[in-house]
């Protein structure tokens, strides 16, 4: 057990640094009271100290600091590191071993010809294919999922028996890990899986269909499985949106003699619009990052994230300039997503007005 512990943490010196921090806290803060008291006092010594030295001015920054540190190092720095990688070349991840490359990586990723050999560049095709296929995926997946999430939310917002139970059932797939989702559906969709065999049993098809191999089917099932796995989440948000619509509006509309159809499209949908917008943007972003489920399912197309994964050599074989090319690709995608989210802010700002 203990060795497993040790192995899991390897010989990282982070815990040690943390220990030092706590010991200083123990000395500085001299905790007393209940255990909880003591722990929190020991943890918070820098803030207490800062307040007694400098008043409450710097405190908000101190409260933000740990979170921002982690954000900074693991979310923002990577963005800039990517920039760094995209302008240097070589296989090493150490910057000192990576010579400046100008726009070479951009060439490698997007150029018509190979800058190293002058031959035709294939990388741009791959990247382009990944983007196109992801695009196709997104174009089908997002509207379909939003549509079904909406329908499900509308149904679940009705006065039905055991509403809570239904709600949890539809939400359940969200709890499953992408790996499990992938395995689950592979089990069903593989060539000799239940689906093919059952359909054959029923005589609907003559021979098993390669659900995950056949290019059209694989896209269909990618969309299906991804929708399956995430629908519950968006359904829930929409449900919250629906419930935020005041009930007396419906009563007023009822008094106004509104037909059910008009109720949906003149009252419910317009009022749900802001939520729908949020849901659409969130699911767009999610769909653009689709990777884990698809990876676990071994679908036969490459999404942008798996393109980055593969090109970078994080999975699969490292190649000489892979890191730089992948970093360049991810910058392009990140830029695109940023535009998307700005668009959302603008749009939702407008609808709020």
């Amino acid at each position, binding site marked *: 057990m203990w060795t497993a512990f040790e192995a899991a943490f390897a010989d990282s010196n982070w815990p040690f640094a943390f220990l030092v921090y706590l010991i200083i806290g123990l000395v500085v803060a001299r905790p007393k009271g209940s255990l909880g008291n003591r722990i929190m006092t020991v943890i918070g010594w820098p803030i207490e100290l800062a307040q007694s030295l400098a008043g409450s001015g710097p405190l908000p920054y101190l409260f933000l600091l740990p979170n921002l540190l982690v954000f900074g190092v693991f979310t923002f720095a990577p963005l800039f590191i990517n920039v760094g990688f995209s302008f240097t070349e070589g296989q090493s991840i150490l910057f000192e071993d990576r010579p400046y490359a100008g726009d070479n990586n951009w060439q490698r990723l997007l150029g018509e010809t*190979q800058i190293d050999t002058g*031959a035709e560049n294939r990388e741009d095709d791959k990247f382009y294919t990944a983007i196109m296929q992801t695009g196709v995926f997104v174009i089908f997946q997002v509207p379909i999922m939003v549509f079904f999430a909406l329908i499900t939310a509308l149904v679940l917002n009705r006065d039905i028996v055991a509403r809570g139970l239904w709600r949890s059932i539809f939400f359940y797939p969200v709890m499953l890990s992408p790996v499990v989702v992938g395995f689950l559906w592979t089990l069903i969709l593989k060539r000799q899986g239940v689906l093919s065999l059952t359909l054959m049993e029923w005589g609907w098809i003559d021979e098993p269909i390669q659900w995950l191999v056949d290019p059209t089917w694989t896209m269909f099932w990618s969309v299906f499985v991804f929708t399956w796995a995430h629908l519950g989440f968006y359904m829930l948000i929409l449900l919250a949106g629906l419930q935020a619509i005041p009930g007396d509006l419906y009563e007023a509309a009822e008094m106004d003699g509104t037909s059910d159809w008009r109720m949906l499209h003149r009252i419910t949908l317009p009022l749900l619009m802001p939520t729908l917008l949020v849901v659409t943007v969130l699911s767009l972003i999610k769909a653009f990052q689709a990777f884990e489920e698809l990876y676990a399912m071994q679908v036969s197309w490459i999404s942008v994230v798996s393109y980055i994964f593969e090109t970078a050599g994080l999975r*699969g074989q*490292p190649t000489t300039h892979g890191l730089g090319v992948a970093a360049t690709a991810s910058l392009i995608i990140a830029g695109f997503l940023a535009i998307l989210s700005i668009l959302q802010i603008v749009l939702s700002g407008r609808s709020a007005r």
Partner: protein
Amino acid sequence: DEITFLCYQNGNECEVIADLAKGFEAETGHKVITEQVGYEVVRDQLENQLQTDAAPDVARVTNLGGLNQYYLDLTPYVDADYMEAQYGAVLPWYRAAGGEDTGIYGWQTDLTVTGPYVNVTMFDDAGVDLPEAGATWGDWAAALAEVKDTLGLNAGLAMDRTAHRWAGPAFSYGAKFFDDAGNPILVDDGFRDFAETFVGWHTSGLMPVEGWPAGSGTAYRNAAPLFLSGEVAMHMSGSWMIGNYSDNITDFEWRAVTAPCGPSGACGAMPGGAGLVAFESSDAPEASAAFIAYMAREENAAAYAAATKSITAHAGLQAAGVDYGDTNPAVSQALSTFAASIGQAAESAPQAFQFQGYSKNFVIYGVVPDYITKAITGEMSLDDALAAIDADVAAKIAE
């Protein structure tokens, strides 16, 4: 000193080495810490590790030539004459390209060779005779097609999705892969010939769709499940599967057969195998070298081969034979078949041997499956695919 040893295994190799290492520890007082990982880690991650400082001291690797730049030259630490005498045939695999390198870099734990397994029960049930040794791929394809049709199978032949399995037959069709100067000449007539045949096998349904076409990029796909579950009559795999198959197949009779030959008469099979190497970055070079030398001794090599049921690279042992103990006769037979294949390939397709030591072979491995798959699925025409292979390899090698 403490040596960290990164190991992957197909069967029980790591355990056997760890067992043998106890003798080494007792003898020298060094300590060997075995870190067992999946093959993918060794294949994909080790190089990353070597670039950072997270690398092990010793590892069992398969990309023998590719990692040459990181190897520790053992010459100063080991009995070079002994190594040359017993392992001379494989030592060049570890060396840098160009033929000037004379270093000794590792101990070949085992030789592997690609080759097919057949489901004899199926042949029996279909009433089709197994083609004799020396039969061509054409003969096999015909026989398999007959089995497939008679028994109503989905496919006859499955091949792991990797260029390594693919290369053997390609050599037998006369593909060269690279010229004497070490430059790739990937797509030549032989290569094209086999690629056409191979794509044809898919179009005719001889090979299953869940094999090559189901993968993308360089992804490896193991075809063993297809064979195990009785969906195909032949599995183009390699000698490392013997142990697994002998343990796991209970409901049909299987047999390893010698590599089929090509139209040119060459009977290509990709030799290969794994080796223990030490890395320059090691803090304990001496201990690491000593460990490798210890393992390379005849008695340890023999024990290793017997325990792992693998083909030894030790020349002396090859000649005298290894006592595989109470191994059942079917396993012994398979071992002998594959051992024979190695010899046969060395004779009729020597390129295969050199290719194994070719430092850029991983580049080629990375490119072939991707484009051939595209040709199979119809995403690209075969001509385009072959052109793309050439271009890509050229590009990658240029880097």
